[in-house]
């Protein structure tokens, strides 16, 4: 049997050593009525070549960014993934290793996480970053729970500019401690400052804004920080680190926690997972952080080495009193991001932002020249923008799919007031030709 090493002769020999006549003898503690009396009802085993044929057939039914021009965003982006990433993460020493609990045999993983923590801290402008959480949504949820633990308060003020998919995850996570979520409405695509002030009270644990927000617009993070801090609340900023090569880091604008989705840093879209949950904080909050942290130390000979540290926050030590239940995280995705940032470097990551911004603005101008199409909001945006269409967005999407264009995300399922809106993302990978083809197809579709 494939993937099973012992031969029948060895199995017999081993049973002999054990003093059993068959494997059944080893299963004596399982009562007869607990036993499954038939084989599992599953398709029979496939040879490798048949499996490949089968899965290629299934994969071929999907419209991937390999064959379609992808203008979809909303938390997952078709950014470029440099070739060395896949080669390096495919080294068995990385991807077949366990969590680095035995540090002497895990220095490779520990060093790369230490580098990752440094890169995320640099990009976000924060003091410390953890070794990763699952994704942007669950990172925000963990941030909200942490703000509740730090402040002892139960109120969360969530801007309507936060990705609604993340909001749904937060709603799940706050069920246990019964936190109350209130919404801060938008004015022209960004959080309404006056409404935010009214929503924040002495019971507010955290104010949450996204930068750039779900609709692509650039929030006044500094203003939100002032409102939050005046009430003694924390400011949580949801940010995509790949944008922060060009954008002012939230740490410089007053954020206490920066959370978000790091998939843009060299992690494939893979239908939405695995992703990369980013979590960074101010120094004074480090002992309340969720997830693993790697720290530098020395070995018996005084050599530099790295270990998992401050583990008394974690579930395997503190059990029900842990700061989070997380155990497995997304270490290999964090490694992808580390290699990505190394390759892009100081200048490349800024250039990714510059190209995305330039192309997004070119696209926004081109698309809004189509009769009946306009930008929904006047506020400045980054690499994503919201179009208002004269025809039903889902029909426009269907029409453009025929031209091998993934046109964007219709917003009707999230909020009926945006039922005529389409969210469009443009990364550095989109070409002028693709954008022009989109504009031409859009003109036909809405005519």
């Amino acid at each position: 049997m494939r993937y099973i090493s012992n031969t029948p002769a060895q199995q017999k020999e081993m049973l002999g050593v054990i003093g059993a006549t068959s494997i059944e003898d080893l299963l004596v503690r399982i009562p007869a009525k607990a036993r499954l009396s038939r084989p599992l009802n599953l398709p029979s085993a496939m040879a490798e070549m048949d499996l490949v044929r089968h899965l290629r057939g299934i994969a071929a039914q999907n419209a991937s960014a390999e064959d379609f021009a992808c203008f979809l965003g909303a938390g997952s982006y078709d950014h470029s993934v440099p070739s060395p990433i896949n080669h390096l993460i495919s080294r068995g020493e990385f991807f077949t290793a366990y969590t680095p609990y035995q540090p002497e045999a895990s220095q490779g993983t520990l060093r790369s996480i230490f580098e990752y923590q440094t890169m995320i801290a640099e990009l976000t402008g924060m003091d410390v970053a953890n070794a990763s959480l699952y994704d942007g949504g669950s990172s925000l949820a963990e941030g909200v729970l942490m703000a509740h633990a730090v402040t002892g308060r139960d109120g969360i003020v969530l801007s309507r500019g936060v990705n609604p998919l993340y909001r749904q995850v937060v709603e799940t996570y706050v069920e246990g401690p019964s936190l109350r979520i209130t919404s801060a409405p938008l004015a022209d695509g960004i959080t309404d400052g006056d409404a935010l002030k009214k929503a924040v009270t002495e019971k507010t644990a955290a104010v949450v804004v996204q930068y750039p927000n779900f609709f692509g617009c650039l929030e006044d993070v500094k203003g939100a920080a002032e409102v939050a801090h005046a009430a003694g609340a924390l400011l949580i900023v949801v940010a995509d680190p790949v944008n922060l090569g060009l954008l002012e880091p939230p740490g410089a604008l007053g954020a206490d926690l920066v959370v978000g989705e790091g998939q843009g840093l060299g992690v494939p879209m893979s239908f939405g997972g695995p992703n990369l949950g980013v979590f960074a904080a101010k120094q004074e909050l480090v002992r309340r952080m969720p997830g693993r942290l790697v720290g530098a130390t020395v070995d018996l000979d005084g050599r530099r080495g790295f270990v998992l540290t401050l583990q008394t926050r974690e579930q395997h030590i503190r059990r029900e009193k842990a700061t989070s239940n997380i155990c497995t995280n997304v270490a290999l995705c964090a490694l992808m991001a580390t290699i990505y940032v190394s390759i892009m470097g100081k200048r490349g990551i800024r250039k990714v932002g510059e190209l995305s911004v330039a192309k997004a603005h070119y696209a926004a101008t081109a698309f809004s020249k189509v009769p009946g199409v306009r930008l929904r909001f006047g506020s400045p945006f980054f690499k994503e923008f919201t179009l208002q269409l004269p025809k039903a967005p889902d029909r426009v999407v269907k029409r453009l799919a025929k031209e091998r264009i993934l046109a964007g995300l219709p917003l009707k399922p999230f909020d009926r007031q945006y039922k005529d809106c389409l969210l469009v993302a443009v990364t550095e990978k989109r070409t002028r030709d693709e954008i022009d083809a989109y504009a031409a197809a859009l003109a036909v579709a809405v005519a």
Partner: protein
Amino acid sequence: MPTAARAAYDKLIFELSSAGRYAHSLPECDVPEADPAAHVPAAHLRRSPAELPEVSEVDVIRHYSRLSQMNYGVDTNFYPLGSCTMKYNPRINEDMARLPGFLRLHPLTPEAQSQGALQLMFELARDLAEISGMDEVSLQPAAGAQGEFAGVLMIRAWHLSRGERRSKVLIPDSAHGTNPASTALAGFSVVQLRSDDNGEVDPADLERHLDESVAAFMITQPNTLGLFESRIHQITEMCHAKGVQVYMDGANFNAILGITRPGDLGFDVCHFNLHKTFTTPHGGGGPGAGPVGIKSHLAPFLPTPVVVRKDAGGYALDGNRPQSIGKLQAFWGNFGMLVRAYAYIRTMGPDGLRSVSDNAVLNANYILKRLEGDYDRATQGPCMHECVLSARRQKKLGVSAMDIAKRLLDLGFYAPTTYFPLIIEEALMIEPTETESKETLDQFCDAMIQIAREAESDPHIAHAAPVTTPVRRLDQTLAARQPRLRWTPS
């Protein structure tokens, strides 16, 4: 004593940086206005660049190749890590997850253009339901702990739907740490139950704790001592009689494929760790995937969306579930891991999966037999897929479970799980998995026996270990007292 063969490499990528060097390859801007200041107000633009490495592509390749060589992986060393199921990670699974139709698929691609992905998810959920005897499976949880959280939230929602506010969850003292942590996260208080001498649930003790304030009983089957809870039907019946739901931590599923099914044992909920039983790699700590299976009475509460087959044919993401516990992550689950698990189940088929558990059990019992003369057994009789030994005999000679673990690193093996389960003194928890051969197990057992002899003759050898690794034992106290969590220029 082995001689030190430590790699001399001690760099961080930042320390290779040289101003002006780069590895990226980005195109020239092909649209008219390239200057971001023309598009974005200056207040939003970064004033000083992030201090990131400036290195060449060959620097990157060589640095991370060297870092990888500082790791033990399943590919390089036997990894007998109990409760973690460190089995071989098939390469074809990696290839399949990288098919462009999967790897480069955006999660919000319209349904009509993502039918392949939805079909794969639907079939995998159906297969896991068959393997576990549960009625439905959600693939959304990103890891075992999130599967637990989802399961406990569904139990909470079910009680509330019946007008009952139950506040406690019972968990044995032998449980994984995530069990109480996930339970507390879902808003319950945790009541710890004592295990009997075999690490099994004591039905009399359970009976005393079962009342109308208890929402659920959460146990690991087989338990963390590697034993099948033989009174499981009695336990689930006792719980159900008091309206208590029974949750199975599926971390040890590798022991029972095709032999017994949690659904048939009376469990209401169980999660899977695809990165254990179903060969998706551990990746140095993740990503994993933690699908959760449930009985039909809990189906209204499943996380949204649920992958369904439409009457008219084809597949859809169904988000219209008013009683759902909601979403756990932004999208649909760790899809890349789901492709790998799917490929594995199709590769093995029903007979192959059954053979996995048979051989996992055989290998664990073989190790137990070979080591029981030199180490104390934690339990009596045959074990399932893992065995727990105690190093209390060696401890009396001054050699602890940790010393043994470190010495194993020098002898070319990763360490077993140590000091867990918490109820066993100086625990060494060994899980060989079915993918290892008798030859490997013999080498490992020989090493373990050698260490036991050394403990008698020269405990210093284990105290000094490891000496062949890139670093020797590390100062954990210093790391925690003066946390240095990021690189800074010296």
